């Protein structure tokens, strides 16, 4: 028996109500976004866009109204998210704060923390990043060494994080760090903290990626003073809290729509009368996308019902990564367009960009090895 049946899930009518709202917003704004920025989409940082989106009430869809949210459900949030991604809207500035930080604070944070951070997140003006990997940890998160030591009421933080998306453009980081010495439990003794990235002792060094852009960062903490209320949730409970986020992180539409712009440009580059090879591949990918979206909606329903669909979310993520990484490979087979940096057709530009970005799709949110290991364990392989 598999851990999830991915039961058919229809988005409820109240969630569908948000679709027209977000489509209208997109229709008004997307014209100003270049095709290459649309290809970036959820990797694309555009504070002005996020602010407008927040002002339009389209961030914090599932957050309570008292924190400036819309108070709608998980499906409404899903609908808004997928519409933004499918359109290639540049959502990266607020994305992690909206997807992960606000829900984390809502679940584990103090009332003061919620009141302090969530309204700004929902306005599209406060941006968060997530500090997980370290230079020598790689996929082995249990081996992290960044450490917060008690000092008076608060803590002093030392260490460093790497591969943190958007740290150089975010206000805060929520980091997983060690608060005790080595415990028997490889995953014990870790806690989550909110770190103000402008605090003394924090140094953010952007890492240039192979396209020449800066998405990732290395962050150094030298005796960074943290107040008592920097702690999120329970001391020593960090690993468990992080694991609970993972299903949200791994099952969303960004796991299969981040190279979606290329599907659109490829369809247009092929034109209305595809040959058999073109029709086959476009149809095949479309079919997969349709099925994967059904799976992703099923996970959303499980999450919404309070379940812990970690296995199902990893399944969505791994299939999604496969689909996203396959797309540029297939697209380059379907037309004679050579990929181009700089001047070129939409297809040539988007193909060049996403071909280069594709390797990163299996870096974020767990490598394929990690995910398949999770799937195997969930199937009781031993």
């Amino acid at each position, binding site marked *: *028996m*598999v851990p*999830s*049946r*991915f*039961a*058919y899930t*229809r988005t409820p009518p109240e969630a569908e109500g948000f*679709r027209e709202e977000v489509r209208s917003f997109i229709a008004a704004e997307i014209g100003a976004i270049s095709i290459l920025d649309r290809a970036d989409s959820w990797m694309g940082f555009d504070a002005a866009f996020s602010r407008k989106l927040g002002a339009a009430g389209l961030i914090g869809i599932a957050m309570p109204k008292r924190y400036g949210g819309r108070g709608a459900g998980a499906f409404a949030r899903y609908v808004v998210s*997928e*519409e933004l991604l*499918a*359109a290639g809207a540049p959502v990266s500035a607020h994305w992690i704060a909206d997807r992960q930080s606000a829900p984390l604070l809502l679940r584990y944070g103090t009332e003061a923390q919620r009141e302090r951070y969530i309204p700004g997140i929902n306005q599209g003006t406060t941006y968060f990043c997530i500090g997980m990997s370290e230079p020598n940890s790689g996929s082995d998160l249990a081996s992290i060494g960044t450490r917060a030591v008690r000092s008076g009421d608060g803590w002093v933080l030392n260490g460093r994080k790497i591969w943190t998306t958007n740290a150089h453009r975010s206000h805060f980081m929520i980091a997983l760090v060690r608060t005790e010495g080595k415990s028997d439990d490889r995953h014990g003794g870790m806690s989550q903290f909110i770190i103000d990235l402008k605090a003394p002792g924090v140094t953010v060094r952007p890492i240039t990626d192979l396209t020449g852009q800066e998405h990732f960062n290395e962050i150094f903490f030298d005796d960074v003073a943290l107040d008592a209320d920097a702690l999120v949730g329970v001391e020593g409970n960090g690993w468990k809290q992080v694991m609970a986020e993972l299903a949200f992180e791994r099952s969303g539409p960004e796991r299969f729509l981040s190279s*979606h712009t290329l*599907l*659109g*440009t*490829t*369809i*247009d580059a*092929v*034109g*209305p*009368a*595809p040959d*058999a090879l*073109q*029709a*086959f*591949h*476009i*149809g*095949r990918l*479309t*079919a*997969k*996308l*349709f*099925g*994967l*979206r*059904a*799976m992703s909606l*099923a996970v959303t329903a499980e999450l919404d019902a309070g379940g812990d669909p970690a296995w*199902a979310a990893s*399944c969505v993520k*791994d*299939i999604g990564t496969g689909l996203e990484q396959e797309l540029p490979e297939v697209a380059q087979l379907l037309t004679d367009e050579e990929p181009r940096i700089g001047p070129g057709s939409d297809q040539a530009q988007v193909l060049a960009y996403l071909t280069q970005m594709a390797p990163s799709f299996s870096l974020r949110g767990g490598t394929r*090895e990690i*995910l*398949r*290991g999770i*799937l*195997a364990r969930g*199937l*009781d*392989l*031993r």
Partner: protein
Amino acid sequence: MRDMFEETVERLLAQELTHEVRIEAEAGRWPERLWSAIEENGLTLAAVSEARGGVGGTWHDAFVLIQAAGRHGAPGLLAETIAVNWLLDEVGLDPVAGPATLAIFEGGAEQGRFSGVLRDVPWLEASGHVLLAADGELLLFAVPREIGRSLNIAREPRDAARLEDATPVARAPLGALPGDVVLLAGAMIRSAQIAGGLSRLLDTAVDYANQRVQFGRSIGKFQSIQHQIALLAEHMSLATATAETAFALAATKISPFAVAAAKSVSSEAAGQGAAIAHAVLGAIGFTYEHSLHFTTRRLWAWRSEFGGQTYWAKRIGEGVCRAGGSGFWPQLVAGSVPA
């Protein structure tokens, strides 16, 4: 309703579908006892309204029955008969008694009498009736006398016959149903059967990997085996979710796109899944004695029936390209890609 269906069909097949029944069916013998049990339990009327003497389940509810038929490799016409009776109900006709099948018809009508060819028809010889669509109507015929037999990889009969000036025993306008509804229904049941077959493969592969020892440990501990089985679980999950979506939508209104997606995805998953299961089970899985091939041969057969992956993927791709990049997303969400 779905839980009850699933419980009934699993219990029934566990009881009646012995290894011997499978082997005899592949040798050409109709599984009489199994069939009686199926009819007695009302499974063939699962998606027929109560007003017409059915169980009153929806086509979506019937998904689990057809999936189970696939999981167990049930010989005979369980899946096809459920589909035939559902379609009859959809156009306001009474269900048939006994096994029934469905066919693609190449031919035409003159003064209400039909002549033409039926090809690759599941178990035609064993059926009482055959359903087809032509001229905007759904038509039910008695099975012709002369049958040309052939066998798919699972040794399931795929028969051929001619209609010569034949008069249907029942007929009704298609109404809201698409003209290729029989092909769509056939593709749907094969998708659900494949999803079921894949779930059986997954169980088999996991059990074997946990029990088989090599180089001093169970092979389920090897990363390569773990990753292959994880991939099998992914194929199974994607095929199941896509197939169930096609059934769920069709319970209200058939989405040819969702059907095409289901058959494209499941046909691909069938080949990939069978290859993984055989790689994991190795030589044992290649013997007649092991039951693995009763599932994999069905997957290899079903993926080509009622349109293979190429047919359905091309239908989708042609529709998508006709609509262009800007229409793509809204149609995908609505399940209304022209296909």
